[in-house]
Every structure is written in structure tokens, then in C-alpha cells.
């Protein structure tokens, strides 16, 4: 028991450091900073480079890492985050995701993807309590965190800039009116957060013993959950959240095993959010707005699309491309179309209901597994299994999501993120092995296995999806859902039960996600849980934001650009992801409301 407690404390220490950085930036900018994840991996690799390659002593390398990370943080904030955060926090969030892709890949080019042995700068197993051994290194880490937290709290309480940070985080506009240089405050916060991220990265590497540029992602995600658990924006909450999560996680793994790690983390998060929708120490404002509310709907109008464009698009996508008979284009096209179906269905949740759910991989996986089970065990035809898989995804995802609709704002994004990861983790517990030989669609006894056939099936489903979405938007129901997203308080005052309509919108989105999953399963003919990752969920969100968050047809454009771009950029394999990230940032910078939405 004591062993587990110590393991949890050491782990919680790292989470706390990361969570403080995330909460700090969130407090002053209202932006969830995904780039913070990259600083963990970057900090570790930089420290490895300074110590092993340049031969610097650890005590010199550590401050150097902090300086480099802080400088990078400042550059990122000046060039990308702040210009966007000023008028659109959501666009800024998306761009931080792009920044993190760029940082990770630049670091991979600089240091290679190889896992490296982190130099044992301090003894790490010279002391012991019972059977559990630990070392000077662990004690130094714990005390460093304590000192950093103490200095931070004194700085925030008495320092001039520190007080300005607190004022900005309480009310940005009031702070501005009182003559506080909010821009400077945001820069300082970003710099501190980035340096803390680097520090946490060095600590992770010290503790774990090996590191590579991508090794920060999972710790980053957990630190992010810790920040949410404590209450976004609350620094004390972040520290508490970090330690609570570290300790509970250690005990959870002790009892249920490492395979349920993600389930444990997110179940803790969801339970806490249901009980306290603002996190342990966060405050829930009486009247809160969704992150999407009054931003996309208020700030941009969709471009008017002349009728001939619809006809032209139909002809090009449905007739010209299949006639080209280029199988590579068609197979890439199937991926574009399937993601367009999933994303078009998602616009009702993200755009109309204003809920930025980050866990669509969950319902996609349900659809894929359900469809595989129906065709293989019960010998359903593909054409029956397809809609049934969609229905199952809608029902199961709705039941699982039902407790979280009282949660608001960014918290619901994190809660749905957790939901998606948990669904896939549970599927992995039930069906640990991959499923092979999923039957391909048949048409009166002929197996449809050619790229053209897949493409045409996907195209047909997409057309139906767009028609259904168009019908829903035009209907009374669609307008009610939109009212919830536009102004939840006003909708509530008019007697609209926002919670129920959000759940309904989510169910509709889950239905189309399930359909997409089924299409993927029967095309790949093989599925396993590694296909349905968090990156898949993020891709769906990115597609939707790219095209215009409430425009189903925008999802088609978003899917063409985002999936097509990955293929188009094949001419530069090393720089592919970096160029992709840059394109994403530029699009968000100049079209923050989406490609098909005019700025206003």
C-alpha cells in the first residue's frame, strides 16, 4: 500500500507541474493550450541533448532547458495564439494543436524518433521505505515542485505582475480598463507555463529513464485532465488535481491493472465533473456561455453558395472522379467521404448545439464493432448492418453520455474526450484481439471490393447524410437545437430544455459516426482498437472547424482539405506534418470561422 502511495505521489508531482501551466494559460487567455503537451517531450529531449551530446552538467542544463522553452513559448504566443485568442478562443485552441504537431515533428527531425536513455544525473534508488526504493532524484523533484509552487503563489499574491495575472484571469476587460497591460500579462503567463512544461518534461525523463520526442503526449493528456479536475484556471486546484489524480491512478492500477489506466483516469474525471461541474476548486459562473456561443454564430456568416456549385460539386465528386478510374484517387476519396459523413453529422453537435465534443472516436468504434459483429455472428447483410450499427452507436453513446450534459463549456469537451477514450478502452477489454475477415458489401451476390464500388457506396451515404442534415436544420427541431447553441440562457428562458436537446444532437452525431465506423470496418475488413484513437476524434473536430462549424457541407470541404492535404504533401515526407500544421494555422488565422464562413 505504502509503495503504491509513494508511486502515486511521484507521479502526481509531474502532473501537478504540467497542470499548473495549463491552468495558468487558461486563466488569462481562456484558451486550452495543446502546445503545452509538446513542451514535456521537448524539455526531456533538450535536457538529454545538453547533457549527453554537449556534455553540460545537469545544473547548467536545467536552466538552459527552461530558457529555451520559455523563449519558444513567447514566440508561439506572439505569432499564433494571442492574435487568435483576442477574438476567437476556439480558433486559438485549434492552432495550438497545429503548433504542437509542428513542435513534435521539428523535435523529431532534430533529435530523431529514437528512444534515448536519459543520463542518470542523480541516484534514483539509493533510499527505501519498505520494499519501495526511491532516490535523491525523487526527493529533489518533490522539493523542486514545492519550491516552484511556493514561489509561484508568493509571486501571484504579492508581485506586481502576479497580481495583474490574477486580475486578468478574473475579468480580462475590467483588468484592461484598470490599466493593466493584458497583452504583457498573457505573454508572461505563457512564458511561465512553457518553462513549467519543460521542467515537467525533464522530471518525467529523470523518473522514467528513457525519453523520445513523442513521449510527452500521454503525460500531457493526463496533466490536462488534472487541470480540469482541479478546475481550469485555478492554480491551487491544478496542484491538488495533479496529486489526487496521481494517487488515485496508482491505486486504480494496483487493483485493476495498467490496461484500465485510461478508464480509471477518465472515470475519475467524469465522476468529479458530474458532482462538481467546475472541477474541485473551479467556480461555475451563474450564467455561462459555451465556448462556441456568440463566437462562430455571431462573428461570421456562411458564404452564399450559388446553385450551380451544388450541381457542379455533385457531378465532379459523384461522376467525374469515379470515371477517372484512378484507384489511388478513389481510395483516398473513400477516406475523405467517410470522414465527411462523420463530420457532417457532427456539425449538429458542434455547430448547432454548441457542444465541442472531443470524443467521436467512441461512437465510430461502436459502429465499426457492431457492424462487424452483426455481419459475422448474426450474418446480417451489410446493407442492414450499416443503419443498425449507426443506431447502436447512437443509443450506446447517448446512454453513456447522459450524465454529463449538466457539465458546461470547456469541461464538456474534456468530458466527451474522456468518454471517447473510455469507450475504446472498454471495447479493448471486451475484444482484446483484432477482428479479421469482416465481410465486404455484396450486391445481389456480387462482392463489391473495387475502389470504385467503395467510393460510390460512400458517396451515396454522404449524399443521404447531407440531405438528412439539411432537413434537420430546416426543421423546427433544428432551430430549437440552434437556439440552445446560440444562447442557452435565452433558450432556457423560453422553455427549451437545453440539456435534452444537447443530448439529442449528440445522438444524431453518434448515429452518423457509427455509420462511418461501419463503412470503415467493411472496407478495411480488419479492425482493432488502435485504429480509433484520440487523433481520430481531433481530426473530426478539425474538419468541422475548418469547413465552418455549423455547415454540414463545410465538413465535405474540410475533409477534402485535411485528408487530401496529407496525401498531397507526400512530396515532402520529412516536412509533411510541419507543413500541414502551418497550413492549418494559416487557414485558422485568415478564416477563423471556417473556409466557407465570411469574416465579419
Amino acid at each position, binding site marked *: 500500500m505504502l509503495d503504491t502511495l509513494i508511486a502515486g505521489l511521484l507521479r502526481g508531482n509531474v502532473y501537478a507541474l504540467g497542470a499548473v501551466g495549463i491552468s495558468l494559460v487558461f486563466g488569462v487567455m481562456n484558451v486550452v493550450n495543446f502546445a503545452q503537451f509538446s513542451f514535456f517531450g521537448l524539455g526531456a529531449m533538450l535536457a538529454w541533448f545538453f547533457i549527453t551530446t554537449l556534455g553540460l552538467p545537469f545544473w547548467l542544463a536545467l536552466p538552459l532547458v527552461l530558457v529555451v522553452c520559455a523563449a519558444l513559448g513567447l514566440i508561439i504566443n506572439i505569432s499564433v495564439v494571442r492574435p487568435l485568442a483576442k477574438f476567437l478562443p476556439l480558433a486559438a485552441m485549434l492552432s495550438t494543436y497545429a503548433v504542437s504537431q509542428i513542435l513534435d515533428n521539428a523535435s523529431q527531425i532534430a533529435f530523431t524518433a*529514437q528512444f534515448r536513455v536519459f543520463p542518470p544525473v542523480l541516484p534514483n534508488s539509493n533510499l527505501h521505505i519498505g520494499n519501495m526504493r526511491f532516490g535523491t532524484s525523487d526527493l529533489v523533484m518533490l522539493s523542486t515542485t514545492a519550491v516552484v509552487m511556493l514561489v509561484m503563489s508568493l509571486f501571484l499574491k504579492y508581485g506586481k505582475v502576479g497580481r495583474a495575472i490574477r486580475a486578468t484571469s478574473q475579468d480580462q476587460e475590467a483588468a484592461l480598463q484598470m490599466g493593466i497591460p493584458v497583452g504583457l500579462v498573457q505573454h508572461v503567463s505563457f512564458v511561465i507555463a512553457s518553462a513549467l512544461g519543460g521542467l515537467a518534461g525533464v522530471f518525467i525523463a529523470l523518473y522514467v529513464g528513457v525519453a523520445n520526442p513523442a513521449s510527452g503526449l500521454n503525460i500531457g493528456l493526463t496533466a490536462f485532465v488534472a487541470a480540469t479536475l482541479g478546475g481550469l484556471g485555478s492554480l491551487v486546484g491544478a496542484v491538488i488535481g495533479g496529486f489526487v489524480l496521481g494517487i488515485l491512478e*496508482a491505486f486504480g492500477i494496483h487493483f485493476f491493472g495498467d490496461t484500465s489506466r485510461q478508464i480509471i483516469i477518465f472515470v475519475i474525471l467524469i465522476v468529479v465533473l458530474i458532482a462538481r461541474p467546475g472541477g474541485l476548486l473551479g467556480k461555475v459562473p451563474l450564467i455561462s456561455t459555451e465556448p462556441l456561443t456568440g463566437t462562430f454564430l455571431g462573428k461570421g456568416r456562411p458564404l452564399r453558395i450559388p446553385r450551380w456549385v451544388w450541381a457542379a460539386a455533385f457531378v465532379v465528386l459523384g461522376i467525374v*472522379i469515379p470515371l477517372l478510374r484512378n484507384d489511388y484517387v478513389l481510395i483516398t476519396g473513400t477516406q475523405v467521404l467517410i470522414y465527411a459523413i462523420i463530420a457532417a453529422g457532427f456539425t449538429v453537435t458542434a455547430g448547432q448545439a454548441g457542444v465541442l465534443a472531443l470524443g467521436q472516436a467512441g461512437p465510430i468504434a461502436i459502429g465499426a464493432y457492431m457492424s462487424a459483429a452483426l455481419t459475422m455472428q448474426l450474418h446480417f447483410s451489410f446493407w442492414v448492418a450499416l443503419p443498425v450499427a449507426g443506431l447502436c452507436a447512437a443509443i450506446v453513446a447517448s446512454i453513456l453520455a447522459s450524465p454529463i450534459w449538466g457539465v458546461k463549456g470547456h469541461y464538456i469537451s474534456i468530458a466527451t474526450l474522456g468518454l471517447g477514450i473510455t469507450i475504446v478502452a472498454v471495447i479493448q477489454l471486451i475484444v482484446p484481439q483484432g477482428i479479421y475477415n469482416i465481410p465486404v458489401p455484396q450486391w445481389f451476390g456480387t462482392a463489391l471490393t473495387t475502389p470504385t464500388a467503395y467510393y460510390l457506396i460512400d458517396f451515396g451515404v454522404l449524399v443521404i447524410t447531407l440531405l438528412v442534415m439539411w432537413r434537420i436544420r430546416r426543421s423546427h427541431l433544428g432551430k430549437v437545437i440552434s437556439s440552445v447553441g446560440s444562447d442557452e440562457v435565452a433558450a432556457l428562458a423560453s422553455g427549451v430544455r437545453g440539456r435534452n436537446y444537447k443530448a439529442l444532437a449528440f445522438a444524431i452525431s453518434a448515429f452518423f459516426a457509427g455509420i462511418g465506423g461501419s463503412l470503415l470496418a467493411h472496407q478495411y475488413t480488419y479492425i482493432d482498437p488502435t485504429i480509433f484513437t484520440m487523433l481520430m476524434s481531433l481530426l473530426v473536430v478539425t474538419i468541422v472547424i475548418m469547413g465552418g462549424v455549423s455547415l454540414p457541407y463545410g465538413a465535405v470541404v474540410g475533409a477534402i482539405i485535411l485528408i*487530401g492535404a496529407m496525401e498531397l504533401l507526400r512530396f515532402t515526407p*520529412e516536412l509533411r506534418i510541419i507543413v500541414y500544421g502551418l497550413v492549418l494555422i494559416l487557414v485558422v488565422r485568415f478564416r477563423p470561422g471556417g473556409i466557407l464562413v465570411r469574416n465579419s
Partner: protein
Amino acid sequence: MSSLHPDTNVTDKGLTMKSVIRNAAVASVAVLAIVSLAACASGSPSSSTSGSASKSTVYFGVSAAQTGQYAQYGQQFKEAFDLAVEQVNAKGGINGHPVALKYEDSQSDPKQSVAVAQKFVGDSSISLVFGDFSSAASIPASPIYTAGKLVQYGFNNSNPDFTAKGSEYQWSTSITTSASYQWTADYIKKQGIKSVGVTYLNTADWGIPAYNAFKTEAKKIGLKITDAQGVLDTSDDYRPSLSNAVVGKPQAFAHIGYGPDAAKIVTQLRAIGYKGTFYGGQDEQSFDGTPDAAGSIVGAQFLETNPDPAVQAFVKAFKKKYPNEADVTGFEAGAYDALNVAVAAAKAGGTTRAGILKGFKALKDVPSVVYGKITFDQTTRRVASPDLTPTILKAGKWIAHNG
């Protein structure tokens, strides 16, 4: 409330500006579509320049991760492939035809590996494809290669189902996980060990089938598994799992996984005070350099220190070409072998797609730095009776272990 349904809300102010933007948007979408089509169409290089001269280049495709989570392995493969191609061409190529590779980055992501597969199938100059790295990316691509009658040589796919559930176009020279972990269970038992604690990667395409093979064999030969914990390679802290796994005081410990996760596991296993022999790890930089990894034992196919002249020639050539690489591991050796096997198949059956398949069916005793000589078992499309050598990690090097 106009923001409620913005798409139906059209005012007449700023009409000119609006139409400019509208036209710009329409134009940009159109341009984008054209560019994508053009780019895709140009994806298949015109082989019109090939002429009918006998010295036309033979192209092999490589579908592997060059970026993302598995990029480390993609980089290792590439170094070995490039070396092998250089050597083959220096010796006159395939009956005079030079060999060249076309790389496509799949990130070992099935969404991209199927597109890569279709790209290769559509590129008539490609006569064989290596890859992908992971089974989760290789298996979804298999039907496409089969339909394109293109040999998919998954030289790294240790999941037995890659070939077992595949068609005659799927071949592999990787030892299957079931074979290598049966061997491991047998070997541990042979050391006089009666009980073993186990951790295994909880991955559908690799770790779980491997653990099942280990468990079945252990039961058959009477090796007691005191506790088995599934773990994730993305975790960093295994102490809670490990303290459970050693509760039954096993005499030895086995980890079924890769190098980086084994490095973390062995370090933390020692940190909780466990002292038994560690059967696990991999010849890989981060594991080899981990202080606590010393004394680990695995069954290896390829050994850098193997005195065999062919192996030493390969190691020497590799280090000469890549002076920064401290070690040559099974990954590089596997890729190096794979290219030579493909070249041998093309020499035996011809450089066309059909010819290479014919070649694979006829191959016999191809020289190999991993196996000595490779002959395929034609029913499994894997190497017939692969052999493993017990090796122990000493001072950062794996050496043959006699025990």
C-alpha cells in the same frame, strides 16, 4: 435572433464585397479540386521513358512510418534498405536492371496505409511492396495488394495472422510472435526455473497473441505463471502493476514487449527491489543503454557480435555508411535481408509482379544475415524452422549466452 439561422439571412449591404469574397471562395475551391486531381493523376509516374532497353529500373515500394509514433523504426528500415540497394546495384542489380525504392509515409496508420497501398498498386512500375511496420496498418492494406496482384512483403509483421489470414500475396520473413514466445517459455523452463511473473503489452495485433502463445506453452511444460499484467507501451509508470506482478515471488520475470517499454519495466522492477532474472527487452538503443537492463536474456535471431563472416561484412558496411549508429540491431538486419530476398525472388522469377510471386514460390537457401539461409515454408509463407539463439546483455552489447 438573426444569428439563429444565419444561412438564410441575406441582406443587401456590402453586396459587392460579398460577391468578391464569394467568387474568391468558389474559385479557391475549384482550384483546390483541380490541384488535388492533377496531383493525384501525376501520382503514377509515367514509365514511358523506360524504353524497351534491358536496363530499366526495377522499383520496390516501401510503406512505413517516416513520421509519427513509429518513425524510429521507419528510419532504421530506411538506412538498411538504402545500404542493401547500394550493394545490389554495385553488383550489377537484378540481371543488369538497377533497383530503386519508392518510399511512402504511412505513419503506420491504416487510414494512410490503404491509400499508400492503392497508390503502389496503381503505379505500374512497382513490382513488390515492403511493409507496413505494424499489423494494424498492414492487414487493412492486404486486400488491396491482393486485388492488385502485388506481393506485400511484411518483413516485420510478426503477427502470424498477417500471412495466415492473408492470401498468396502476403509473405514475411519475420519470426512469428507465437514461435518466439513458445521458445522463450521453453528456454526459461530449461534454466530450471519453475515460476515466472509476466508483463505483456496489451495490444491487439501483437502483445496479446504473443502472451497467449507464451501462456499455452507454459501450461504445457509446467512453467507456473504467478501473475500476468497487461501493460500499455504509452504508460511511463509501471510500479503499481509490477508490485502486483511480483507478489507471488516468481523466480524469474518475463516481459513480452518492445525495447523502450522493456527499458522502463526493468528499471522500475529493480526499483521495487525485485532481483530475479529478466527475460525480455530488445536489441534497441534505449534498452541496451539502460543500466538496469544488464543481464537481461532474450532469444535473438540476429546478433551483431555473431562471428559469421556474412554478418560481420554487413555490420562493417553498415557502420561505414552510418558512422553515427552505435549499434546494428535486428530491425536493420531484417530490412537488409528483406531487400536481398526480394532481389533473389526477382532474379528467380522475373522483375514483373507475377514474376516476383513466382520467385517467392521457388526461393531456396537465400543467404541471410538473420537466419544464415532463408527457405520459405510454402504453406505458411514464413521462414521454415526459424532458429533463435539465447543472448544476454552485457555492458550494452548482446552476446551469445550458453545456458
